[in-house]
């Protein structure tokens, strides 16, 4: 049981994969999770990205449920 983390665009290039299952403890926020991710992937530190939790853009205070789908989204380029 764990959260599914999706990486897109240049972030997927850094991680080398499109998604990962992470086991996290309950009660984490997006801010907490970002810290963990940046520890594992230091190259992301200088990248801009937003975090979507269950397909909604969240901020650092958004709580992550242990069954959430979390997506790391680099700058949008549609159009």
């Amino acid at each position, binding site marked *: 049981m764990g959260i599914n983390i999706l990486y897109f*665009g*240049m972030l997927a290039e850094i991680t080398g994969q499109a998604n990962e299952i992470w086991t996290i403890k309950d009660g984490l926020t997006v801010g907490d999770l970002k810290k963990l991710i940046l520890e594992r992937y230091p190259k992301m530190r200088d990248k801009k990205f937003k975090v979507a939790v269950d*397909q909604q853009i969240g901020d650092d205070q958004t709580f992550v449920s242990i069954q959430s789908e979390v*997506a790391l*989204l*680099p*700058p*949008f380029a*549609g159009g």
Partner: protein
Amino acid sequence: MKKIHKPKKVFMQGPISPQFVADAIAKHQSKVSIGAHAIFLGQIRADEKEEGIVTGIEYSAYEEMAEQSFHEIREDAFSKFDLTCLHIYHSLGIVPAGEISLFVFVSSAHRRAAFEASEYIVDEIKNKVPIFGKELVGPTGSYVWKENK
């Protein structure tokens, strides 16, 4: 009175052809309450970058979330503007320079609503939909990640 609009398929593989645009227009000729169509087409520019000339863009997306964003943008536009029809199409995969990657088709009884909605919707798409683009540059397979301003 509030009409719910069914989510529609927005993404298409590769460029959007002029013929596709023509077919969309033709389909609206039976809707005789329409007086104005505003169409926006996004075309890939062969911009000059440090790394070389852009030959195309390769699009990818967080598809599920993107389709949901497109749906919300449509609902929002229908509630803000007095529209008869609204269709959005966006490319995925490679779109070569000179070809079309975005087609926004707004129809209304009177022109003002169509104009205002068209610009609003394109801005919303650029800001809110999780679509990502690699600008392919030069002949050697290098690329630059695109970023909307």
